[in-house]
């Protein structure tokens, strides 16, 4: 069974964030307390390397530094990052070529981080007119659940169990596919009950939006069920619930569910140890 490398890490696995739809602002606020707790030393300089990719190239890059001195951040401002939507409604509606954001945390001074996984955080997407939503980003590499899946099945497949289209109620759904790598990827998308999967090419360093309503026949008023995405090479994806008439009017955006390669039966000794060693957190004081 694979285990991630132990010991201090110079950098964390890059985090991939979906593009802000038209009308929205992406607001990233890195969790400073959690990052401080993740630092091995009390004196470190952390490079925050944010990169906006799209159309096969690096569009823009922002490098900022957080300095931890004697366990305190000297200036917290670099933890905040806002990005207005770089796409218009026509581009979003077509969905063929969208950008995406990558965020890397790298220790430039000090021993780095206790774990290769960056502390998790949500990204907020807000707007003057459209409903706000938030999303917990995706790991570009080394997702533990994907590793278990590859070990079990030698295949990659992710999806979402409860997807929904309802033309009468203006309920639409899409999947945003993000290929942060340097070669194109081809994935197949299947919707439960539909006979033929659809193949989609996701160009290198770009993302696209596949609208499920377009995969249904025009006469199909409603559909509800499981969606799967698979292929020879893994891409990141987010499932988006939105209006049909206005696909950039978002209700919510969710990370995918991996078809899990862990067994339903578990080792007896592991269960015993887990139950006997179950840690209860120290009682919190409310006063």
């Amino acid at each position, binding site marked *: 069974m*694979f285990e991630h490398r132990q010991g201090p890490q110079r950098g964390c696995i*890059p985090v991939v964030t979906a593009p802000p739809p038209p009308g929205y602002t992406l607001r990233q606020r890195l*969790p400073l*307390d959690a990052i401080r707790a993740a630092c091995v030393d009390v004196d470190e300089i952390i490079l925050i390397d944010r990169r906006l990719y799209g159309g096969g190239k*690096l569009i823009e890059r922002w490098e900022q530094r957080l300095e931890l001195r004697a366990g305190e951040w000297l200036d917290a401002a670099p933890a905040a990052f806002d990005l207005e939507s770089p796409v218009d409604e026509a581009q979003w509606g077509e969905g063929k070529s969208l950008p995406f954001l990558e965020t890397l945390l*790298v220790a430039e001074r000090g021993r780095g981080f206790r774990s*290769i996984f960056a502390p998790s955080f*949500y990204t*907020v997407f*807000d707007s003057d007119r*459209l*409903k*706000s939503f*938030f999303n917990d980003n995706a790991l*570009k*590499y*080394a997702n533990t659940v*994907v*590793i278990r899946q*590859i070990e*079990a*099945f030698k295949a*990659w*497949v992710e*999806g979402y*169990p*409860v997807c*929904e289209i309802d033309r009468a*109620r203006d*309920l639409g759904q899409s999947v945003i596919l993000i290929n942060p*790598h*340097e070669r194109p990827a081809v994935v*197949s998308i*299947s919707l439960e009950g539909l006979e033929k999967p659809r193949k989609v090419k996701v160009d*290198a360093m770009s993302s696209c939006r596949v609208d499920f309503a377009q995969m249904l026949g025009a006469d199909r008023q409603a559909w509800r*069920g*499981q969606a799967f995405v698979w292929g020879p*090479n*893994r891409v990141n994806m987010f499932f988006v*619930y939105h209006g049909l008439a206005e696909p950039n009017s978002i209700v*919510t955006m*969710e990370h995918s*569910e991996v*078809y*899990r*390669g*862990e*067994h*339903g*039966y*578990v*080792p*007896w000794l592991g*269960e015993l*140890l887990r139950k006997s060693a179950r840690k209860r*957190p120290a*009682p*919190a*004081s*409310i006063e």
Partner: protein
Amino acid sequence: MNEADDPELLCYCVGWSRTQFIDHIRAAPEKDFAGACESSGVGMVCTSCLLNAEVVYSQARQAAPAAAERSSENKGGKLHWPSRGEIAGWLVRHSPLVPGHFESVCPVISGPSLTTELVVSNAIAPPVGARSAAFAVEVELNDSEGKVAARLSGRVAPGETWRADLGTEIGGTSGDDVGCGSARIVLRALDRGYKGTVRPHFAMRARRGSAVVHTANASRNASTPHLFSTRRKDERHFVHIRNCEAREILCRVSTAPLDGGKAVEVRRTLPALGSALVELEPQGAGLHSTQVVCDGLQRTYFLAADADFGRVSVDHV
């Protein structure tokens, strides 16, 4: 960007940089791409970096081969004594298998045209086939006072989906009231297959949109501080707190503007297994942070809704 300056590794699973992989490729000119990956481990674990690794391989082969004597492999035949953790891991892996018992909780809300549906999908994935186990599903639905409102059970075999409308048992569906409660879900494997897609999800269905999120376990007293935006007028924000203790707990919900300002605190006492939907009180427009701290185990979900609950989004925090 000069690749040598790029702080990003090529493969985070095995911890190899591009330079290390190039050295490895050049040191073994007889190896094709698959062979280089197999011998180094690059691209063989989560497989996400395979596309990048292929680019690096092509470039390294096209470039003049370096007289690289140094191999990046660290597999020198040294005797390795297992640690206590490795021994314990081996013993665990080789102990007899028993049916897994997977427990989680979720919020339940209901109101006019608003309901919560629990879904357990045991789907057959196209490239994998029917490899998942059958699972027994048991649900205990608690109202906001923690009283048992219903008990549901079922069985979900590969290719089947189990659904239950939880909202109708909670009430709050008349007038403008939004009722709240919670559910505890237990999955038990019935054979030795895999978990597949059975992690339970709940769908909050409203008039103009649905939101679907997985259930989660209860292991903490405090939620992670959570951000929300009040930029758009007429949007309401809530936290749903579920007491996961068989005793009363006290909870404190603190909300403050992110750019400074006074925190607003709300305190709620939750009966055993009870729950509450607490509306957050922002101060003006902008980003706010909220955190829930309780004196017992809890699970918090955050909800953002239109003023009339026409659309609701939800996620765990």
